[in-house]
């Protein structure tokens, strides 16, 4: 049976440095996904993901285990994302390539779905990405952690340092805003969602 995150943290703190490697391999995909959905740019996602693990490595020796390792890792990730978004606002930065990357990256070149399906899916992906990007930061964080990272309400609350009821309120507001924005673009209900790719 694979060791739990907490067992790996214990092992690392006892001096087994390989344990950190296992943690990185276990979490890098999830962290990459969360950062991408917070920032919407692949270049920045690579930087921030790497920075997250570097910071985790520096601090893991003194990690008190008051929260789950995953929540702690998400805390580091979100702090770095918030810093980056703040700096972006200062520079008035706009990522232009992000949506194209997002829409194009997950489509296999092989034949299967029709070109129309692919275009439709790409448009839908772009619309959803734009709607999430337009959310207020605190609602976007909750949506990313809950909807796309699949964390439980308790885990989201722990990662954000909020009571679960506040998490639910932010989630509900975020979902409502998303629904309104997508409806404004003419996207209503699951009829607009093509079948998933094989």
């Amino acid at each position, binding site marked *: 049976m694979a060791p739990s995150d907490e067992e790996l943290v214990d092992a690392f703190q006892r001096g087994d440095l390989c344990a950190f490697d296992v943690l990185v391999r276990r979490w890098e995909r999830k962290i990459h*996904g969360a950062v991408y959905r917070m920032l919407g740019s692949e270049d920045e996602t690579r*930087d921030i993901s790497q920075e997250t693990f570097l910071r985790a490595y520096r601090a893991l020796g003194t990690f008190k285990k008051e929260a789950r390792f995953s929540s702690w890792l998400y805390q580091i990730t979100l702090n770095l994302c918030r810093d980056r978004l703040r700096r972006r606002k200062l520079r008035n930065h706009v990522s232009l390539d992000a949506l194209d990357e*997002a829409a194009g990256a997950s489509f296999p070149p092989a034949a299967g779905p029709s070109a129309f399906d692919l275009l439709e899916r790409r448009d839908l992906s772009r619309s959803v990405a734009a709607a999430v990007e337009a959310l207020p930061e605190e609602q976007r964080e909750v949506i990313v952690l809950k909807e*796309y990272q699949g964390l439980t309400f308790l885990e989201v609350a722990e990662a954000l340092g909020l009571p679960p009821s506040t998490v639910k309120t932010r989630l509900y507001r975020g979902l409502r805003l998303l629904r309104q924005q997508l409806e404004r673009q003419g996207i*209503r*209900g*699951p009829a607009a969602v093509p079948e998933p790719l094989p």
Partner: protein
Amino acid sequence: MDCESFREDMLSVLYGEADAASCARFEAHRASCGPCREELGALNDLRRTLAAWKAPERAAPVAAPARASLRGLAAAAGLLLALGGALGLSGTQFQYTRGGFSARIGRSGLQDVQPLLTALERRHRQEIAGLEARLQVSAVASSSAPPPAHDDAALLARVEALIRESEGRQAALRNASLRELGEQAETQRRYDLARISAGFSYLEGKTGQQVARTTELMGYVLQASQKR
């Protein structure tokens, strides 16, 4: 009770995290509340729509030595300098108009051909006008008396000569345009190649940053192992 007090239960049900008590509470409310039934359905639909946004796969880490990336950068910079010189010598112009850059390749361009074309067109018009005048004269003459045979032959020969001359000019112009287009395409190709090289050099620069971070990480690992 108002619907708002069931909202947390509804979200727990929506994400499959409701315990037995909150599930029963919400189900009892939903049975008698149309708006909540509709809202739960709409939120389920929304979640399916949100799933359409896929994050790109994490790119595999590229291990490239920093020195190689510096060599690549130097080569790209050299290539850009050489191309910049070549473009400058060939009279290439870069302009910023309507929020974007545009490049005009080559010194002469189509502008220089324009006066030639205008002059040619003027000559053609003069020749056509002359021909028309002569045809009118011969038409008037033919109405009164049959024209001499040698005049018809001379006119035909003159028309044929004019046509040949015109075709020759057209062919020369076509060749000149093709040659110019070829030169422009070649310069454009070199310009594109330089841009691609610059792109590679940028990517290699990013890799260099990654390598620097990895090196830092390795430093920590070494320090930690030495402490141990």
